């Protein structure tokens, strides 16, 4: 199994979810994160003091899927999350060696269905 971690713009979450839905990925876990990278932060001002906050609001999506499903899913996320502007984000892939569905105790890829 593979874990796909996608860090995307918050405004793209709805689009990415819709894209995943379309290709039949029903389960995922989402969290608010802050990212820094090439994208420049917005400057903030507090009583005339400047702060350039380069931690920007991002959303991270984690999906664990059978190994073979990973490629099209990465594709789909990539397409849905892209604006072409700096700051679109990254997708990371890593191996997952086990999965359990707590409710049923099912293990492995069946736990993901």
């Amino acid at each position, binding site marked *: 199994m593979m874990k796909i971690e996608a860090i995307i*713009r918050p*405004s793209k979450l*709805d689009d990415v979810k819709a894209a995943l839905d379309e290709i039949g990925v029903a389960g995922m876990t989402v969290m608010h994160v802050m990212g820094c990278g090439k994208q420049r932060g*917005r*400057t*903030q*001002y*507090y009583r005339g003091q400047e702060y350039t906050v380069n931690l920007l609001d991002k959303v991270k999506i984690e999906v664990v899927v059978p190994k073979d499903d990973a490629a099209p899913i990465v594709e789909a996320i990539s397409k849905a999350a892209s604006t072409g502007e700096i700051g679109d984000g990254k997708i990371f892939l890593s191996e997952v060696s086990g999965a359990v569905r707590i409710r049923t105790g099912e293990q492995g890829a069946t736990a993901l269905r």
Partner: protein
Amino acid sequence: MDRQSVLPFSRKGVGAVAVTPIATLVLAGSASAQDGASQISAGDTAWVLASAALVMLMTPGLGLFYAGMVRRKNALATILQSFIMVGVIGIQWVVYGYSLAFAPGNAFIGGLSWLGLRGVGQEAGPYSDTIPHLAFMIYQAMFAIITPALITGAFAERMRFKAFLIFMLLWATIVYDPVAHWVWGKGGWLGAMGALDFAGGTVVHICSGVAALCCALMLGRRHGYGRDEMMPHGIWMTVVGAALLWFGWFGFNAGSALGANGLAANAFVVTNTAAASAALSWMFFEWLHRGKPTALGAASGAVAGLVAITPAAGFVGPMAAIAIGAIVGVLCYLAIMAKSRLGYDDSLDVFGVHGVGGTWGAIATGLFASTAINSAGANGIFFGNAALLGKQVVAILAVFAYSFVVTAILLKITGLISPLRVTKDDEETGLDLSQHGEVAYNL
């Protein structure tokens, strides 16, 4: 002399004031009669000043009410759009707005004789014998402040701050001030005709509600409208805002009696009653329709009830208030349902609540008004006088037409100076960061 020896301040003849050039300027708004203060009623003045404070609080209260309904990234900008109105109109009013609206003029607009509050002093003015003219002026200022603030809900989450400031200053001057004169100013044509508007159903609510509709149509929808979930970021805040509005509205309506008397008490009672009634009717109607009674519904209903009773507060009794409130709760809910069909993006339903609610209130005044409540008012249809309703309808139509058309023109003019909307990117980032370089929360 210190403050204590000042009080109780005896008004001896003022004597020769050494008039340096600047003195002429800074004394505007103070000079005139020191005598005649004797007829001022401390009780009435206490109530009107307290009411002015209450109405002032409504504007930031409105800011909270609205901010709770926007997304987090626009929360601060939304509060600020209300808050800064206290600044902008607070100055506009004392410099020339009050004069335009209330100074002697013709049927359509006041004059320039009270520019810079010249002649508006501590003694009673032409609008009341028992309170200082300055008290009347500042009480009215608070109405002039909240009216444009109400509009901000229509273009929430997308208007450029610079364009917003320009538009609001224009709007207050060219829409609000004349309309206030029509209804409340000495010689204003709607007032002279006999249309009744106790505390601003037409002047404040219809006028701002219609302008809001115009803004929503002309600015267009928010990006992602209809596709993204644009859920309120803090309904608790909206409920608190509604509570502050309710609290302040006692000053708005009962203060409009311009004295602490039976009429004020009546206005206070019907205000509370209509708000209560509409909070319940909206909540129960939504419960029937959707299966859940919501806090947002109760809060919205309360505001709708307060809007509807505003023109009627000094002319109807408590049982009429129950009816007015019960009806407005359902009416506004339906209006908002209709909006989602029609597809324009009046983001926080200013027209649905203030336009529709204010219109119903003006009509209801024509139905339920009774001279038994206020002998200086008039009877409505239920008391055998159909004429009043006609006048109310004329007032409604006049304000609808004027506000809509002039708002549209002013938006066009503003658009020549600055783009009305922020860029798509800025809209996505949120107004807090893009317009103000701040965020509401750093949790």
